[in-house]
């Protein structure tokens, strides 16, 4: 989406594509925090 509007975003933002936000497991969010993520953004 950022690509289509030619926006830039910092490298500290890592993306994981999912088919639907319903797929996002609470376990996955906790894994991200456990591995040092400062925040998790679920966008859909």
């Amino acid at each position: 989406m950022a690509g289509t509007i030619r926006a830039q975003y910092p490298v500290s933002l890592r993306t994981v594509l999912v088919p639907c936000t319903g797929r996002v497991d609470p376990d996955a969010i906790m894994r991200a925090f456990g591995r040092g993520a400062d925040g998790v953004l679920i966008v859909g």
Partner: protein
Amino acid sequence: MLETDRNPNIEILSYSEVVNVEGYIGNFRVKVKRKARFVDENKCTGCGQCTSVCPIYVPNYFDENFSVRKCIDIAFAQAVPAVSNIERSSCVECFACVDSCDVEAIDFSQKDEIIEIEAGTIIVATGWDLYQGDDYGYGTYDNVITQIQLERILAPNGPTFGHLKRPSDRKRPKKILFINCVGSRNVDTNAYCSVVCCNLSVKNSKLIKSEYPDSEIVVCYIDMRCAGKMYEEYYRRARDSGILFIKGLVGKMREDPLTNNLIVQFEPVGTDSVVEMEFDMVILSSASLPSQGTNNIASVMNLEKTPDGFLKEAHARLDPISTKIAGIYLAGSCQGQKSIELAVSQAKGAASTASIPMKHEKYTIELIRGQPDNARCAKCYKCVEACPYGAISINEEDQIEVDIISCRGCGICAATCPSKAIDLAHYKDIQYVAYINELLPMEN
């Protein structure tokens, strides 16, 4: 409706109700309950002899209970098929109708019947109902009626044969008030705007004014929403004909017990004054609600609703006809109240949309689908509940089964399962766990 009935490709099942829908696009299995009329549809000629000999009168729902019909009667004058049905709860079983029928069509032993239909696609068009709250004395004061009741009074085949008469004394009302937005745009009842009532108040007030030019008509509104083709011009003509459109809603209303007139207080917007006026009749432009039939079909077919209670379309802008479930389409007011021409457009659109998969005779699905691992399953059935498409079910061996046609690959089942017993093919847990691990490397 007659043309529809005569079309060889169309079968009308009237006096019936859909009670169950199973399956998926191309292969829906629908169970329909055909309610007992106690009259044989194939024999009845609609001659009306049974109606004329029946001694029992019941309120006529079609005339909004302003008139009566007989216990055995055709539903309304233009009903298709034009066959009688008996309201068994009011019937005294005198059997006068049975004796009078020349073709022996009346059959008191009839029972409700369930038939099964196979369908490739389904279009839901279950319509709307009128809000009937007790606002402004409706139900208490005789001369406070709804727009639908007014339509029946003005109808040439209605309870007064089209002559404007008011309920309390059957006299012609000269001073008439229309109150718009009754039950609409109100967080206590329905927050939404019911779309059609402003234009309805313009139409009915103009109709009365044209027929009875000496009428004094006032329409109280919040906004006059006359959007759409030619409606604003119609509103201008109504104002030019002498109907008073006043911005400001009615505050207090009371009935004069001697005359049954309504004494109404309102504050026109932009003035400091409270105006009190007396009217012979008050007409409520009441809100449009999703019909009882719409609520029933939504629970039978597991259809989603938007917060206003109407059926949920696939996309509010890009596709107001399809639903989330492939093969089920919406048309008319069940998807949201709309004017007649928009309902017709939507109906034509729904018919075309439904015909596309039927013409192709093929339906393509993606590969991303739920995959159960029954060895791990703890049988909590949380996935069955969580699936928004009703695609997960329990089969005879008590195993979880995913219908790959209804499944849309959203993955909610996989996220919900506490035992990790169901996963999403091509988006398995181990796949994106590896992804996250790589994106967030840890030192040790």
